[in-house]
């Protein structure tokens, strides 16, 4: 299933994670009252990200979409070390994230940045988390970047404080904490059955699983799938979303839009990799559930839009 891998001895792949991370860290050296300076740093980081993502897109364009670039973190060989994977989809998602982040940051500069502490650092960390989740090829590393992303989103969600934000923020955090535990259970179970955490390696092992191992692996897939569906806000796991988006500060809510996509992206990735046509007895596992869930969510969103009274809850429903 895995197309031919081409090792790219370039640090381009890690840049989408590292740039915002370092930018966010650098901002911490300054007191929060230097907001314009932080804004400048953040903008510079975003522009650098834009350049990187354009370069990435142009690199993956060759070979009709079969190009897959990898980056061996720490120079350790593939199933044991952490690897970053770049293909068309991930390159485009990184691009999308950047394109979404730029207007959000500009909007925040108009005032929201001053409503609380450390807005800019949190914003950069969020981007680092999202990009990391898009690029990583390791299941547990994905968990870590999910957490980076979520932690930053908690901060941005609560940015500016206030009753509504705290009330909905608590729901948001509680549900995501529970989902993260589910993710951990799933990832652990994958390691317990498949003996590896590298996504490509998992897909290699899946057809070889036998008997109870396969059933347990499916249980792991269920845990993971549910955790991602919660993040992707699929009905009936989506009730946290309208309140959260409506209560969050607008620039934060705008960036949250990309986070539900992370959930969907990961589902897509893992489904194709692990339960694709080559997965032997597990091929197509869970696909009907996903389709049903998707349709139900669409219907729910439509009813929600029609039934909602204000614009912001409407916009939230349309996701």
């Amino acid at each position, binding site marked *: 299933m895995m197309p031919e891998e081409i090792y790219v001895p370039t640090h381009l792949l890690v840049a989408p994670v590292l740039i915002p991370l370092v930018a966010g860290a650098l901002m911490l050296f300054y007191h929060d009252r230097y907001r314009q300076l932080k804004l400048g740093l953040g903008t510079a980081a975003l522009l650098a990200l834009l350049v990187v993502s354009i370069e990435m897109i142009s690199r993956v364009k060759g070979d009709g979409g079969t190009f897959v670039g990898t980056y061996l973190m720490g120079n350790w060989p593939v199933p044991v070390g952490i690897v970053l994977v770049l293909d068309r989809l991930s390159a485009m998602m990184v691009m999308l994230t950047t394109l979404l982040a730029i207007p959000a940051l500009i909007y925040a500069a108009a005032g929201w940045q001053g409503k609380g502490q450390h807005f800019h650092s949190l914003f950069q960390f969020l981007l680092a988390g999202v990009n990391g989740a898009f690029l990583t090829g390791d299941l*547990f590393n994905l968990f*870590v970047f999910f*957490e980076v992303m979520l*932690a930053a989103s*908690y901060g941005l969600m*609560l940015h500016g*404080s*206030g*009753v509504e934000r*705290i*009330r909905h*923020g*608590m*729901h948001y*955090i*509680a549900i995501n*904490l*529970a989902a*993260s*535990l589910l993710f*951990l*259970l799933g*990832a*652990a*179970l994958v*390691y*317990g059955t498949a003996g590896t*955490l590298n996504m490509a390696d998992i897909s290699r092992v899946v057809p070889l699983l036998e008997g109870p191992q396969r059933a347990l692996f499916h249980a792991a897939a269920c845990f993971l799938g549910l955790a991602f569906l919660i993040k992707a806000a699929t009905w009936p796991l989506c009730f946290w979303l309208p309140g959260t988006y409506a209560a969050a500060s607008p620039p934060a809510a705008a960036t949250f839009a990309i986070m539900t996509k992370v959930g969907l992206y990961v589902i897509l990735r893992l489904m194709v990799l692990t339960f694709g046509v080559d997965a032997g007895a597990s091929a197509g596992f869970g696909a009907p559930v996903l389709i049903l869930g998707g349709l139900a969510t669409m219907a729910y969103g439509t009813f929600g839009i029609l039934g909602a009274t204000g614009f912001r809850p409407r916009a939230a429903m349309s996701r």
Partner: protein
Amino acid sequence: MELILSIAIGVLVGSGVWLILRPRTFQLIIGLCLLAYGVNLFIFAMGRLYVGAAPIMPKGGFVDPNAYADPLPQALVLTAIVISFATTALFLVVMIASRGVTGTDHVDGKERDK
């Protein structure tokens, strides 16, 4: 050994699940902590159990992997412990902030039937 540990995990998870379905924020946070213990032990158990075989290697020489505990789940648990500690701390602060602004410790920020 395996049986005891798995029952222990079950008890922790069961208590945790019961608590996160309760309506008070404090119950929720205790439940999340218990769940985190359970999940950490679960991850740890994925490497199978070894007694007296800590993954600390001799300096040099041949290494028989079967003589040592699987180090990877341990590393994962370490990361998981830190992350769950961080998120628990955050939730705690949100919890007291919510108690402050809403005047109730109900998870929905308002008492039932009000």
